[in-house]
């Protein structure tokens, strides 16, 4: 059993609050992603769970036991760092086995564990190399291997993919998802990348300025954002926010329209708009529009989109797709 339970957690550095009133429970085996812009406190929260940072107030339990008084190594966690944090003067093998020597694990046992994990991660041939002789992706595997070898109840990932190039990031993302299935362990994963958050999470936690803005499954959070910040943070291209008279028609201070929910109407119905710019992406096109009634808009169109005539056209959307927000930016149900 390795659920993580956090209640009323706060972290203050002098006057400034890094975390304020954070409560979160992660079930056993769940993949929980903490996502938010930089400086939102997500890494601090992860470091507190790891025991590398001490909370100012609140409670934290891991696997049902109070973890606050425990040293990091006693919490049953393993952490993968953004910088990999591999020991530069040790080979990959030593990197993975070093911590085990202090856990009263016997030498043959250590060897067996390291070799089987290396097998699983496809780094068996690299075990004799030092970090400097490994590529970014290989270092990442060694770092993950070092975490798995410990047999932790909870895995903590701190932006593990942000130092990798785009192609490698996508494949490693898949591998982490596969790893989660294979190990069945609880994982808490910090990222600022919404694609990682959406694809990996069972439970997504959106944070901003040290507070949790919303918790839910990725689709829940995407479809029903709790407020304007969450709505704007998720989704690419960014959600269109319309204020003024049209929002008032819906009884809201502002309304949110996802770019994929806008359609171009050939019949001349809907709101008049003019094409400002088209970004062809191959698989689709992002059309930047300007409408007198709605303001600037982005619309997701098929890849064969082209401007006909003088670029004047009409935009429509379904009422049921519209997200409503009150004057404080909170969602109206």
């Amino acid at each position, binding site marked *: 059993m390795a659920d993580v339970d956090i209640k009323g957690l706060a972290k203050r550095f002098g006057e400034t609050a890094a975390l304020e009133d954070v409560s979160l429970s992660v079930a056993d085996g769940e993949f929980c992603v903490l996502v938010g812009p930089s400086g939102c406190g997500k890494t601090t929260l992860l470091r507190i769970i790891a025991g*590398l940072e001490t909370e100012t107030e609140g409670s934290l339990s891991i696997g049902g036991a109070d973890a606050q008084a425990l*040293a990091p190594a006693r919490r049953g966690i393993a952490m993968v760092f953004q910088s990999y944090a591999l020991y530069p003067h040790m080979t990959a093998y030593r990197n993975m086995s070093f*911590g085990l020597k202090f856990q009263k694990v016997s030498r043959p046992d250590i060897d067996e564990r390291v070799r089987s994990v290396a097998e699983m991660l496809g780094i068996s041939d690299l075990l004799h190399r030092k970090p400097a002789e490994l590529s970014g992706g290989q270092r990442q595997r060694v770092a993950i291997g070092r975490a798995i070898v410990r047999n932790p109840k909870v895995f903590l990932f701190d932006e593990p993919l942000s130092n990798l190039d785009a192609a490698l990031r996508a494949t490693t993302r898949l591998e982490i998802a596969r790893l989660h299935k294979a190990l069945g362990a609880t994982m808490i994963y910090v990222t600022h990348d919404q694609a990682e958050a959406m694809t990996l999470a069972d439970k997504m936690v959106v944070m901003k300025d040290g507070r949790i803005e919303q918790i839910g499954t990725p689709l829940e959070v995407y479809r029903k954002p709790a407020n304007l910040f969450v709505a704007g943070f998720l989704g690419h291209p960014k959600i269109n926010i319309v204020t003024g008279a049209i929002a008032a028609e819906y009884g809201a201070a502002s309304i949110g329209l996802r770019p994929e929910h806008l359609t171009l109407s050939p019949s001349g119905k809907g709101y008049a708009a003019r094409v400002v710019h088209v970004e062809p992406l191959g698989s689709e096109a992002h059309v930047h529009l300007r409408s007198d009634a709605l303001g600037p808009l982005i619309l997701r169109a098929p890849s064969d989109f082209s401007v006909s005539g003088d670029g004047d056209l009409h935009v429509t959307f379904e009422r049921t797709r519209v997200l409503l927000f009150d004057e404080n930016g909170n969602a109206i149900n």
Partner: protein
Amino acid sequence: MTTRMRLWAVHVMLLVYAVLALAPVLLIAMNSFKSRKGIFRDPLALPTGETFSTVGYERVFANSDLWLWFANSLVVTVVTLAAVVVFGTMAAWALAAYRFRGRLVVGLFLALGIMVPIRLGTVAILDLMTSLGLTNTLAALILVYIAQGLPVAVFIFSEFMAQVPRDLADAARCDGVPEFRIYAHIVLPLIRPAIATVAIFVMVPIWNDLWFPLILAPGEGTRTITLGVQQFIGQYVTDWSAVLAALTLAVVPILVLYLALSRMMVRGLTEGALR
């Protein structure tokens, strides 16, 4: 073209400096192989068939406790070096990695040691050593030299340790590595070049020091090499051949240590230990 000229200019400057620094040493070594007459007739000449003589060396080996002086100097230098490296790295790691009450005060206190020359405290130190009954022991010298070397050592170590990524220690903590093992197995190997640098910085002044051996340990059995050489310098007659021979010999061990350490330093730097 300009970069090439700049390279030349730099090398010329370095060469001039090297000549300036090495000339006295060469002069001593050169004249140590000359007879007394040869030294005084033309001090700048190389030893020739006529002036060549090993009389200085013969007298040094025959009439002195050279090996005892060497042993004393080596014991003092090596023990001090070891203590400065052990305590210096520990103090620096504590100051660099942990936040604790009084951290700033301790740091400033150590920095003060760099600014105030330890010789200012000579009278008090002599007083203290007398009270402790440590006069005429190597321990007295070792204690003073540790105090002399530590501030600079801590300063240099701190600078290097500030470059050791915090994540490394944190990762080790998550791995369950005890704090002392983090220091010993992760931090120390990474700052190896710094250890060599500090060792050189600390070692040379100690080996060359005349002041404290003269004051704290002038006895027959505890003389260091620099103090021992003085026995050939008399008020009325100075045996220059012997003095120069002894000085030349005194350079050898420190040169060997220096070469070993600087090789270690370069190896550490080229390995890019911190990357």
